[in-house]
């Protein structure tokens, strides 16, 4: 079992560090700290990732509610070109 362990850790160690680093780049809170040159612990990155995803889910819920209440006000019979331009150019 120990040989299997060393094999997997050798193979994926760099890969995992790389992926963790990429994750950190996506998190708004930690991005500042990265630019300051301080190293952030991987466990902190994972924790921050979890709370960020939860926050995004909550925003999704709020926006769904908002859109639902606006649904009847939408005066579109077909997809509006103006709307698309506004949305896609931001």
């Amino acid at each position, binding site marked *: 079992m120990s040989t299997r362990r060393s094999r997997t850790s050798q193979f994926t160690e760099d890969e995992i560090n790389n992926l963790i680093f990429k994750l950190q780049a996506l998190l708004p809170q930690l991005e500042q700290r990265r630019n300051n040159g301080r190293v952030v612990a991987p*466990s902190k990155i994972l924790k921050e990732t*979890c709370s960020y995803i939860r926050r995004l889910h909550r925003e999704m819920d709020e926006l769904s509610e908002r859109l639902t209440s606006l649904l009847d006000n939408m005066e579109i019979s077909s997809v509006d070109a103006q709307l698309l331009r506004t949305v896609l150019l931001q």
Partner: protein
Amino acid sequence: MKNPQRSPTNPGSVRSRFTQVFLQSLLRIRKHSPASSSSSSSLGEFLKRCHRVKVAAYVSMARAAGTRRAWSRAMLWRVRHDAHRHRLLQGRCSRSSSRERSPGKKKRRTKKKKKRRDDQEHGFGNAEKLQKLVPGGEAMDFSCLLDETAHYIKCLVTQVKVMRSIADFYSL
């Protein structure tokens, strides 16, 4: 403007695909829901529509992301599975099946023991929570989970931005 990532689907096209599909879904939801303005029955209708909008958003994003991603496949599977189960339940009119807190996130059951060893080996203890948050996460090994999470987050951010833009557009 963001530079296109080296992944096969760049963010620009995911965003536009999502927007188109999602807007069509919104129109469909509006057409199929009763446009009743009586305030007595509207709360239930509102919640139903709200749920449909939310599901449409997630499905549109999963479709826009494509089936090359494990999380998008898992999400589409989950929605289809939940819709089927919901239909079965509606026939029986029973509420007793809400034994799962979150709708079937388990696509495939794999032994949890292996997962824990995998991520604890590298010194992380929080991978379990992350697995529950990312669709299909419980079936992924650690490095796969990290990779899928990054893509999932990018797509969620796009989704939120587009929905906010649409809402702002019609709020004026």
